[in-house]
């Protein structure tokens, strides 16, 4: 069951440019977490900005009751978050939303994470490995300094292939299927998970369709309530549908066969 909790900030530091990792201690919340879910956090006690912000669970250590959050400073809320200090309290609500499903029997899984889209995939990778799954992770960023999750991904025993826009590491180019065609032609992928820019995920959705591979994606949207009460984070699962799904409650994770990405 999700809860409200004042979590204690253990660390909060800039990793590179506008990318930060915050670690919090949240005994009530941590034990409830599943990969792909999110925390709805308040970045300041004042009135501006007013609303909570959804942040993916980047990593969770249930034994130590610790949760890590990976975030990019993009606006007022995340800028205030970046200013918070160890020892301070963070007002969190969660875990919320529908997370990733984990295979019942061990599979070869492909994880495709673009930029901060890697945020929900690290904890997923950890849980997948615990379940004995074999992982190939495709990790795409602008330049190699943004590969914040790389060490942890390798430490849990996943095979990682990198793409950078500037060619500073791995393949040079965007994280799209053609760039990895050679690598993928030798793999027997059984399930795909992805998070990142929607235009990128759309190409992977097409690739998965052609190769008859099932999978899941995690979507992002501005949210107000986070629990399906305000109906603010609506989108159509398919353009010609009449009704809308809510990212916070029906998602943020959706099966590839549930929606048409744009």
């Amino acid at each position, binding site marked *: *069951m*999700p*809860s*409200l909790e004042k979590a204690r900030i253990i660390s909060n530091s800039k990793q590179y440019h506008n990318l930060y990792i915050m670690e919090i201690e949240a005994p009530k919340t941590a034990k409830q977490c599943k990969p792909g879910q999110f925390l709805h956090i*308040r970045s300041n006690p004042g*009135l*501006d*900005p*007013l*609303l*909570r912000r959804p942040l993916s669970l980047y990593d969770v250590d249930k034994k130590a009751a610790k949760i890590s959050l990976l975030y990019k400073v993009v606006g007022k809320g995340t800028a205030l978050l970046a200013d918070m200090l160890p020892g301070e309290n963070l007002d969190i*609500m969660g875990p919320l939303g529908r997370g990733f499903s984990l295979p019942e029997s061990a599979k070869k899984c492909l994880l495709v994470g673009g930029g901060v889209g890697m945020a929900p995939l690290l904890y997923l990778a950890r849980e997948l490995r615990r379940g004995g799954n074999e992982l190939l992770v495709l990790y795409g960023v602008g330049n190699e300094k943004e590969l914040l999750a790389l060490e942890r991904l390798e430490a849990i025993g996943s095979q990682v292939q990198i793409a950078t826009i500037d060619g500073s590491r791995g393949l040079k180019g965007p994280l799209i299927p053609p760039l990895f065609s050679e690598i993928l032609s030798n793999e027997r992928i059984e399930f795909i998970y992805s998070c990142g820019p929607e235009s990128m995920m759309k190409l992977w959705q097409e690739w998965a369709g052609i190769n008859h591979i099932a999978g899941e994606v995690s979507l992002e*949207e*501005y*949210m*107000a*309530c*986070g*629990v*399906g*009460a*305000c*109906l*603010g*984070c*609506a*989108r*159509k699962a398919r353009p010609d549908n*009449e*009704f*809308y799904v809510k990212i916070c*409650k029906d998602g943020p994770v959706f099966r590839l066969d549930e929606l048409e990405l744009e």
Partner: protein
Amino acid sequence: MDLTVNLGGIKLKNPVAVASGTFGYGLEYADFIEPEKIGAVIVKGTTLHPRPGNPGPRIYETPAGMLNAIGLENPGIEVFLREYLPRLRERQVTVISNIAGNSIEEYALMASLLQGQEGIAGIELNISCPNVKQGGIQFGTDPETVRQVVAAVKKETSLPVIPKLSPNVTDIAAIALAAAEGGADALSMINTLGGMAIDINRRKPVLGNVFGGLSGPAIKPVALKMIYQVYREVDLPILGGGGIVNHIDALEFFMAGAAAVSIGTGNFVNPCLALELLEGMEKYMQEQGFSSIQELVGIAHT
């Protein structure tokens, strides 16, 4: 300490309600707050037929507030009665239904469908939704239409009827008087203020619906003024809201003339607010020597 309120015939265990559209159908927040402890849960605006709502983006944060253009997405009154109401009744939640129609006849028809349903304490008439092309606001800006809608609904039901007034008018007191003439049992005010935002990179309005409704602390002074005005001119209990995020805000509303208050956007910030407010209010009342919330209502009027 007496916190009970009689809001035009609706007995509230405490004077804090949660506002329509911000609390779903009452159970979405149940992991965080027990809805049966809240003074009243005003459920999402419901229409005769299901409505898909507006295309996104539907919400946008603004300084100390937010814009929304949900467009009254709801499953229709039949689904509400069949699927949601029984669960609320089982938990003994004080439910106020919120309805919006496309015509005076549709408001009346919905009122007749609610009549006799066990578990509904009252009807809030949404004649002030700024986000739909038909229904809502066009019924709330002309005094004569307001009178007719309220009278038509009153004919169909014995439930207390609470028109929800729009702040997007030049003379709120005239609208409130018309609602009283139509037979309203109480008044709910205010709904959101019309607003918009523009994305300078796309050079387009942010909201899918172009216009939205502004809510949150940014509108509190407007809400207070309108309630203060209406309290002077109309002899009906007021359910006051608009920007309440703490007990001090709430106390201001009581002093301006609200008999009870509603929390909307504040729920998104703190889902437990509706009950936490009570503690702050009680403490203030104790310290200042008040024994009943009714003593505070309209006390700021000289």
